[in-house]
């Protein structure tokens, strides 16, 4: 968690997932993050924009702000990162970080 805080000071939690048999499997997580809820929101919105997604190369993202806090999800066909952040967090930084992890497969702290 401290390593994550060093990169994203406003982070409250993070999870890294890989695609597995049509679903997602969590391979690493730290802090508090509602992975199931964040992915369900992504799924409810993905059909509109992501119907023709190229799973090998296209990255999709969702940012959700609600009473439960701020969640950022970035995913491609192989992996996904879910971040939970404090309100008012630097979203550009969080998105850049999440995209980097998804692209390189480097483990979340």
């Amino acid at each position, binding site marked *: 968690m401290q390593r994550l805080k060093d990169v994203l000071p406003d982070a409250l939690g993070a999870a890294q997932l890989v695609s597995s048999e049509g679903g997602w499997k969590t391979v690493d997580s730290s802090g508090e993050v509602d992975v199931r809820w964040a992915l369900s929101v992504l799924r409810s919105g993905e059909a509109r*924009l992501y119907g023709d997604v190229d799973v090998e190369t296209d990255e*999709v993202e969702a*940012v*959700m702000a*609600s009473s439960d806090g701020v969640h950022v999800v970035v995913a491609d066909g192989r992996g996904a990162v879910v971040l939970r952040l404090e309100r*008012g967090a630097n979203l550009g930084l969080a998105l850049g970080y999440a995209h980097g992890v998804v692209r390189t497969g480097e483990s979340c702290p």
Partner: protein
Amino acid sequence: MSVMLPTVSGVFRSSDLRLDGDAFQQLADALVGSESSTSMLSVHGDHGVGGVFIDEGRIAWAASPGARHFLSDRLVAAGSDAQVMRKLVEEGRRTGVPLGRMVVDRGLMSAAAFSELLFEHSVVSLGLMASQRVNRIERHPSRGGTFALAFTFPMVPLLAESVRRLVAVEALEVSPSGDDLTAVHVAVVEGQALPVRVLGARAPKLSELLSLAGDAQAVMSNIDAGTVSFRRGNRCWSVSGNQQSFVVSEGRSALSFAWMLGQGGL
């Protein structure tokens, strides 16, 4: 496509009328079926038969039984001479020349004033149609292509104005930017997502809007209240608000992404 609509001054607003969800759905389906064509819809409701003229996918005018005023009555109420108007109506019936064209061509009313009056008349009529039980809607395609009417309005802003006067929704003070941005305030009434105001520069087709609003309603059911933005490359769509009232936007501009997050109070 930019939305240029007349500014409505004196508006009809009725607390007696209540939007009928089934009637709205039937009306919306019939309008969607005509959004790429020129046709006339006969709306058979509990209060009689009304009509909606659609010219190349845009609403030219709507008239509902129960509106009390015919278009000519509205023209008289707006200052036109009653006797002159009666003669024009008769002439129009005889020659087939639209009343509005005669009124404007003969200098009885400015084009802008007539456009505003026609818009208002159609808003009231659609509102009346959507607030009574609709038994059936018949579609009559125009044989000659276009009706060649001088004034037409995009479906979504007109329908939204009708809905907004029938349902209680808070006004939103927002000014989204982006030339290619669709942004519409949607209210959910009896489980149906209904447009109440077009906020963006672009007026979507009614079918596009209903699809977008339905998707947004599904997203909002997951979060109760807040903002969600989805992005892939430079395409994005967002929804912000709560389960009863939300703004949904879609466009290629990254501005919509930033704007919607701003609405969420981040």
